[in-house]
């Protein structure tokens, strides 16, 4: 059986990130933490990119999917009494993450289907509402810790899990966009009416985008929960959704490489600015404004978009 190059890439990434876990103890814990966050945000931003950048649906509730994945996986590892050192932890974590992703994608379906009639601003507000609804529901569920939060989550996240998932997201997006099947997404994003006229069901495309994006956001949530070991609803508010949206826009909607770079940049930046403490948020925000004025199509995009509401292209989009 001939293996596609992309699968070779994926397996290599699994192996390399697995090997990386053996040396991660030697790394300065602060840098290691930033590295993990970079990985998690790449997953979050790329998964949002599937919805926003490739299918063209404006979603402002991505943190909601992250929250679902975080809480679902935490509940599972808690129920299975998984602890950090045990041999059992590997398959258990895999199951927990997978379930987190699946439950999140189910909500992606629930959000996706009714939202499909909505366009632009209306869809954005609906997804924003969804994100908040999830947060509020969790806040009121006692068995999830409500506003006090969910504590005692085993610290199972390491470079293998994070970077294997990063590789998986890249693999999925790249293969999707570079297939005839995936071109339908770009077509729907560019001109829904024209896409329908050549036999593409825009409804189906949007649902698939939402479900896929939600799935990976859910896994990112699980990875996050099992790194910070304590989660509460306020971590998954609209502000989090907004941070992820910013990463996608700065990176360039529909640009795989661009979003990876911007997620990395925007994760490092607040940390790098810690030295200027009280001016940190000012500088960060100022930078965003400047970038949007000078390069609205995204920092890392090569080709300019033809229409102002069309997504630009890079060699990897």
């Amino acid at each position, binding site marked *: 059986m*001939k293996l*596609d190059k*992309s*699968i070779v890439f994926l397996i290599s990434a699994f192996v390399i990130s697995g090997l990386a876990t053996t040396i991660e103890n030697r790394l300065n814990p602060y840098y290691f933490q930033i590295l993990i966050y970079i990985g998690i945000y790449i997953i979050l931003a790329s998964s949002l990119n599937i919805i926003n950048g490739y299918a063209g649906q404006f979603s402002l509730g991505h943190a909601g999917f992250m929250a679902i994945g975080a809480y679902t996986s935490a509940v599972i590892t808690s129920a299975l009494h998984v602890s950090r050192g045990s041999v059992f932890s590997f398959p258990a974590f895999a199951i927990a993450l997978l379930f987190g992703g699946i439950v999140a994608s189910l909500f992606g379906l629930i959000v996706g289907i009714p939202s499909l009639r909505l366009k632009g601003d209306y869809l954005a507000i609906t997804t924003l509402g969804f994100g908040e609804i999830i947060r509020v529901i969790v806040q009121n569920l006692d068995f999830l810790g409500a506003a006090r939060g969910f504590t005692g989550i085993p610290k199972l996240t390491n470079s293998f899990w994070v970077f294997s998932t990063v590789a998986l997201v890249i*693999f*999925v997006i790249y*293969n*999707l966009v570079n*297939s*005839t*099947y*995936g*071109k*339908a997404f*770009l*077509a729907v*994003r*560019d*001109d829904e*009416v*024209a*896409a*329908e*006229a*050549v*036999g*593409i*069901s*825009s409804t189906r495309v949007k649902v*698939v985008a939402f479900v896929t994006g939600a799935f990976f956001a859910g896994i990112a949530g699980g990875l996050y929960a099992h790194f910070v070991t304590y989660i509460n609803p306020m971590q998954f508010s609209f502000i989090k959704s907004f941070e992820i949206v910013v990463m996608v826009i700065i990176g360039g909607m*529909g640009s795989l490489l661009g979003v990876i770079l911007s997620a990395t940049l925007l994760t490092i930046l607040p940390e790098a600015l810690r030295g200027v403490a009280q001016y940190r948020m000012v500088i960060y925000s100022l930078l965003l404004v400047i970038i949007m004025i000078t390069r609205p199509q995204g920092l890392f995009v090569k*080709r300019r*978009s*033809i*229409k102002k509401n*069309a*997504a*630009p*292209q890079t060699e990897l989009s």
Partner: protein
Amino acid sequence: MSLLNVDNCTKNFGGLAAVSDLCMEVGTHDLLGLIGPNGAGKTTVFNMITGVHHPTGGRIVFDGIGLVGRKAHEIARLGIARTFQNIRLFPSLTVYETVQVAFNRNVRYGFSHAISRLGSFHEDEAAVRNNIMEILEFFDLTEVRDEQATSLPYGLQRRVEIVRALATRPKLLLLDEPAAGMNPSEKVSLMNLIKLVREKYDIAILLIEHDMKVVMGICERLIVLDYGVKIAEGTPREIQNHPKVIEAYLGEQVQ
């Protein structure tokens, strides 16, 4: 042998009757022109056939299948393709990718194999690639295949749009004012293009057009609409001298 049968179709937008009781038949090899002054309801007819609008009344039957109530993409899959009055291409796609989108329905694999590249993926993609190259070659678009489709000159954009429609292997092709915005030499190219399409594909073509040279030059039969009502039907020669048609176009030149 009628391929498309529009039976007493009406479309009301609020109080306005855009199309009233239209009856129209298109045979499997017809080249039919739909003409009439601006606002006569011609594009509305197209939109009803392609499922963009639902008729307020009447039936539309295509190849024995009722179209009313079906979604636009379903109707496209049944074998009706169209181009748009204001060219609607995909701004971020190249010419190659634009045609590739139209071949979307030819792939047998689904989401999981699009990602894993197992199963029939490579075979299907190779087949699509061949189809794309073949059709681009035939319509002389090979040189521009990696150009952004919307960056091409207007005449070429229209050609790409027509090729995209043909890539879906339709039985009926609807062209909505294909000559709009073209200079005389582009119009001649267009007419030759349509004739070429007829020769190669032997499909039915329904054409909306204002340019009478184009209409008289290629259409075998004409239907004339005015204020949403069919006022005449016949060969170009018959229509040219039809009193009602001349009256509807009063003030415009009819050759």
